[in-house]
């Protein structure tokens, strides 16, 4: 097994007026290739901050983050954007699809920033949509899709550039239980096919679906269970 992302003694400090507060207080964790890890914890535990650090959406105050053998602890926003584009795929609670934009165009969005031409983009976006079971919905806008379908469009978007890591932030939070079930099953299937997934949730039930549960509290990893 090779590590996809390695966090070593990561500290993230926020300053509010006179008080400083460590949202992450020395986190050391490694996500291996093929992992399906759930990060759980109550609100305010630091799990969102941890997800932002893993997603290179934010940089640690101190400590080291290594993604695909590259130190990404101190990237500029421009460099980080390139890393997120090439190495990561995001799935959000509220789908975050562009309104009034077709499924194909939504899925192809990361490829625009990767500088890939339109023909290639459309081809790959259609393939990704077929992969998530949305053939025949290529030209539908988000408003013409159900919640579950919208989240699958978002997953297709996360998959489109074959990321080393898929980060999902409460992916079932806005879905009814049936659709949520489908999405979780889909994540499991992706994992079986070799995708590395990190899922952030506050729900123990959702976390149970993962192969590994990382519990976080007060900015520290409290428990790291492999199953």
């Amino acid at each position, binding site marked *: 097994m090779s590590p996809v992302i390695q966090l070593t003694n990561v500290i993230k400090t926020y300053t509010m007026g006179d008080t400083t507060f460590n949202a992450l207080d020395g986190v050391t964790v490694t996500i291996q290739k093929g992992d399906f890890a759930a990060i759980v914890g109550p609100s305010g535990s630091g799990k969102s901050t941890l997800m932002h650090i893993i997603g290179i959406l934010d940089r640690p105050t101190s400590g080291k983050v290594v993604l695909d053998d590259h130190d990404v602890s101190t990237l500029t926003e421009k460099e980080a954007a390139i890393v997120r584009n090439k190495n990561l795929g995001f799935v959000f609670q509220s789908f975050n699809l562009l309104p009034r934009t077709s499924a194909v165009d939504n899925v192809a969005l*990361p490829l625009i920033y990767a500088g890939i031409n339109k023909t290639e983009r459309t081809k790959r976006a259609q393939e990704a949509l077929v992969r998530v079971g949305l053939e025949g919905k290529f030209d539908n806008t988000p408003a013409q899709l159900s919640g579950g379908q919208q989240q699958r469009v978002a997953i297709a978007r996360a998959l489109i550039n074959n990321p080393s890591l898929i980060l999902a932030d409460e992916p079932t939070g806005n879905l009814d239980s049936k659709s949520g079930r489908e999405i979780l099953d889909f994540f499991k299937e992706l994992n079986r096919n070799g995708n590395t997934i990190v899922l952030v949730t506050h729900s123990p039930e959702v976390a149970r679906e993962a192969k590994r549960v990382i519990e976080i509290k007060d900015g520290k990893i409290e428990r790291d269970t492999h199953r």
Partner: protein
Amino acid sequence: MDITEIFRLSIKAILSNKLRAFLTMLGIIIGVSCVILLVAVGQGLQLYITQQFESLGANTVAVLPGTVSLENGLSGSQPNFVGSKLTLKMADDLDRLGGPIEAAGGASQIPSTIQYKGKSKYTTVAGITANYSDIRNLTVGSGRNISTTDVDSARNVAVIGDGIRETLFGQSDSIGKDITIADNKFTVIGILENKGSGGLGLDINSFVAIPITAAQRLNGSTTIQAMNIKARSKEDIPAAIDLAKRYMSKQLKKDEYSVLDQQSLVSSINSILGIVTAALGGIAAISLVVGGIGIMNIMLVSVTERTKEIGLRKAIGAKPNDILIQFLIEAVVLSLVGGGIGIALGYGGSLLIQRAFPAQVTFWSVALAFGVSSAVGIIFGVAPAIRASRLEPIEALRYE
């Protein structure tokens, strides 16, 4: 990332909210079309006045009695027609000087009522020499012109404008008929060609010309009110003025005459109209700035409204510059399209106005309006675009 791709994104964003895009552009549309329209009207007026003066005879130099100055624009001192010391002999002398002077003739004006069979019209009757129509570019459409013999023997003959003919005679024959001018009978011998609507200073349609000698008899004077000199060409005007001044200085005292060319009158009128045009354009340009502020306002709202979209774009790989350029292009496209529509409207409006009023769309007003509207787009687009590009992806994603 390719600039054409960003361009496509911007266009898509604009098209996804057409009504708002239109309302945003409205300020620019109104501003640009106003600039073009107002400048077109100003320019048209300038051109019209220049043309009117030229139709009265280009290359003409006038010798007027008294001290006439154009230095203070139109408020210069007026000619002293009543105390005129100019004589017909002077005009004849000038005419014979030759050189830069092609022709010279005298002229006097008698405001009076002309009558024919109960119909009457009040107008200014001009006493002229035989070469007047050459100097002033007048053409006799039917009948004949006033001849040297008419002048020499002070015959009671008249050449009338087409408007006068219409008023006095209607459809009936006019040539050979006797009309009454200041209680004297004059025979109509020619009708001037209709050169369109009236001009400045001289309305050809209501023009009535009689031999200057006949006019002197009506006036009971031995002098004439003015002399018109035609230079051989535009380039000969200064030499003609020079020659006329030299001749006049031997005849009269310095304050008894003035030698003026039409060009200086035209240019002093034009400089005033130029200021008016610039002022009109300037006022319209203010609305362009207001339009620009409108664009900035909408773009700022748009950035706030699309915070989440910006966050998402950044999360999946948009660099700050990609976002900056996208929003900047949106603002610029809005102002350029608005500018384009404004130019079309301004141009169309000018064409409409042209039917009733002289209007001349000038290249510089279009260039200025277009330049200002694109500058407005860039200047007022920068602030919102920078704000968008600086949004933190986390904050932006969290935004509800």
